[in-house]
């Protein structure tokens, strides 16, 4: 593939799409909004096309493992391929909003997903247990404020001292919100910089362009 098609064309598409989106958001120019809507629709369509690539790739990856009879794993790969194509064919045949499809979806996938979310509670407890140790002044302040916020949120806290709830609210509304907004502003500036560099072709890392790849290599000193 020539360098023009491989590098210049994607950059041109990104530049034009980015300028249309900026134009829609910041300037009230007639006609831009409808073009921007079309671009958004195109983006969704391209992403949906990638779904086909993904389905084929997942099938191929799993088939390779099935054919190789990867020890202890190939039955799971087989099961994955069977389920993948069952859902695709079933969805195409009955439609993703049909009663039968939704029954399967809600009673299998949604239930399994809810179970996974249930596991997160235990992971959170583990994380809290490891993190909530006083190692210095900063972690001490964090734990003290977390303890106060927790006491303000639970009913027994109110029984111990009625002042916990207002104190908890103050911690959340003043120091916490202030620091959080500061971080959000900083993140927004960073996001703007990345978007700007991407739109104007200054950051090419998303295309795997070599500028970043050569990083970290120590320059050889000439004798």
């Amino acid at each position: 593939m020539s360098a023009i098609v491989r590098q210049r064309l994607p950059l041109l598409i990104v530049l034009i799409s980015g300028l249309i989106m900026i134009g829609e958001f910041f300037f009230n120019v007639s006609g831009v909004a409808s073009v921007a809507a079309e671009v958004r629709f195109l983006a969704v369509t391209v992403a949906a096309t990638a779904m086909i690539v993904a389905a084929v790739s997942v099938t191929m990856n799993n088939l390779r493992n099935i054919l190789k009879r990867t020890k202890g794993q190939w039955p799971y790969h087989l099961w994955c391929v069977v389920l993948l194509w069952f859902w695709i064919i079933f969805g195409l045949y009955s439609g993703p909003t049909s009663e039968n499809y939704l029954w399967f979806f809600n009673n299998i996938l949604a239930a399994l997903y809810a179970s996974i979310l249930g596991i997160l509670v235990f992971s959170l407890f583990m994380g809290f247990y490891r993190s909530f140790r006083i190692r210095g002044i900063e972690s001490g302040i964090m734990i003290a404020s977390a303890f106060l916020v927790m006491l303000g949120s639970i009913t027994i806290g109110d029984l111990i001292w009625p002042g916990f709830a207002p104190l908890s609210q103050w911690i959340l509304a003043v120091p916490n919100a202030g620091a959080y907004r500061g971080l959000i502003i900083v993140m927004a500036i960073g996001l703007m910089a990345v978007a700007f560099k991407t739109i104007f072709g200054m950051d090419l890392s998303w295309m795997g362009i070599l500028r970043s790849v050569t990083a970290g290599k120590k320059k050889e000193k000439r004798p």
Partner: protein
Amino acid sequence: MLFIELAKRGWKFELRKIEGVTAMEEGVNRAVEMGRPVHWTEGHPFGSKLYDSNGPYLVAGLAILNYVTALCARLKARLLVNIGHTELFPVVHELVRYIYVAEGAADRYVDDDIQLMPEQSYAIAVVGRMERNSVGCHIQTGYFWSQDMVLVPEVAQGIGAIVVTGAQIDAVPYLIMYSSSVFIADEFFAAAADITKDPTDVGGMMGCEWLKVVAMFLALAGSILVTLGNNVLLGLTNF
């Protein structure tokens, strides 16, 4: 743009060393010493798409993947990549393959090592693959949501991997609990500048630093003016 132009013209800007980048290098080196693979992932597509407002997080994550891939190719570490976004899948395939070729390690590129994980069961699928391969270093940079910012790094830490993470600000408190090192706030975007030392990246980050100063000044001035009963700056936000 001004700072990028100045950096290109040879102005020297000093950026502080980002701890996450050092941690990534240490993590990959440790994985090589232990003979275990390195793992990278960018989250599942529930909260982000490459073409929505959270897209820059994924793009910044790809910049880090770029570096991790180059490190792995150079140090002969096996790199496992799990993708949650279908639209990123072909991009990442091309990117990783391209870097392996550029590093002269095309023979070590394995197509199967890059896999797409389904949306609903993303975290469980990723966790399963990490455990089966006993990864030595786990790097996750992108946009993360519930299960992927809690379960995935927790399991990675459980199997003894060095965990380096970077994500949107909502995820950072959780990631701090489970990670050896975290890119906090704009460090995530500054990582590329620290890695490449490229004038475009360094100049861009310097511009961001000055924008931060302006934002701080405006916040301070706005607070004082509003306290004194003057809403001039507040009115500017409603243009």
